């Protein structure tokens, strides 16, 4: 979990409590590492699409491992077979483990059947990043999109996941939305089965501005 934690300094190392610790990584360490990751990839590619794809691939590897870890740690012996089960799992559990809090909202897209959006006022990875004008619509949230894609793919729900900026009135910085579009073959299998138990009362639907 990444957070802005202050490490308490002990005068004597023998006084440190022998506990599991808070299991947090310092935000600045992660910010430095992530900025280096982006810079390294920037020197290797020629265009924006390629840079986004590289960040996504990096996130994919993280997502695959996070899924294994979380399923063992949190879920006990339950597997997720329903699409409507895996989405809240990503939205709350995965986000809590990675960023310390659940994502801001999870919405169902209105135009297509199999589109979902996870929105966040400001992605943690984008906190210290400002995109130069000439990079257009590039979003370093592609890394987080890759994480989500890794989780969904390995759980058996292939999807195309992208990150977008959505400008909001009244706020200076645009909101970030992770758009999840599930693959065609899913609409026949599990998705249809889960339609009968469709229940959105657990998350608050917000109209997308």
């Amino acid at each position, binding site marked *: 979990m990444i957070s802005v934690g202050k490490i308490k300094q002990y005068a004597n190392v023998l006084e440190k409590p022998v506990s599991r610790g808070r299991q947090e990584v310092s935000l600045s360490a992660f910010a430095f590492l992530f900025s280096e990751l982006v810079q390294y990839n920037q020197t290797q590619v020629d265009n924006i699409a390629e840079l986004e794809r590289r960040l996504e691939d990096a996130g994919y*590897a993280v997502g*695959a*491992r996070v*899924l*294994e*870890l979380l*399923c*063992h740690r949190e*879920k006990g*012996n*339950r*597997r*997720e*077979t329903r699409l409507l089960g895996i989405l809240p799992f990503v939205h709350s559990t995965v986000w809590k483990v990675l960023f310390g809090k659940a994502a801001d909202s999870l919405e169902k897209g209105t135009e297509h059947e199999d589109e979902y959006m996870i929105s966040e006022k400001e992605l943690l990875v984008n906190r210290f990043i400002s995109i130069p004008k000439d990079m257009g619509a590039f979003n370093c949230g592609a890394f987080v999109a890759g994480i989500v894609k890794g989780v969904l793919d*390995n*759980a*058996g729900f292939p999807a195309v996941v992208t990150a977008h900026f959505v400008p909001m009135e009244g706020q200076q910085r645009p909101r970030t939305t992770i758009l999840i579009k599930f693959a065609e073959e899913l609409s026949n299998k599990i998705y249809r089965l889960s339609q009968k138990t469709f229940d959105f009362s657990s998350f608050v639907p917000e109209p997308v501005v």
Partner: protein
Amino acid sequence: MIMCVAVVGHQNNPLYLQSFTEADDALKLHHIVHCSLDVVDERVNNPKKSGPTLNETFLGMLYPTENYKVYGYLTNTKVKFLMVTTDLDVKDADVRSFFRRFHAAYVDAVSNPFHVPGKKITSNAFAERVSGIVKSFGPVTTG
């Protein structure tokens, strides 16, 4: 006595296969593991009873042959763990706890950044942990 354990990926490709008996008929064990994969697929695609057991990871005894029993466990990423044992009176709880520890060792092995998903698990630490888990498998003694 556990004869062998196997980890099979989600495309039924073998990721790890380890036998623990000296008089090993390695080919026969491979064959048994391979046949059990069919049983796993059948269990997953046609759930016997819908309800609380629909999403279980622990699949239970897959099938008994003349002197072995095969147990299966399915993770969320469709990776299967199979365990072949020669014990006749092994308890359900023992097998479950065995698979739980095995799953923990597997998660640690996969979290290795140098591990390529889909390739065989080559970590020595994983092999040692699995041997440790297998050695300590057995009926839980009371008292």
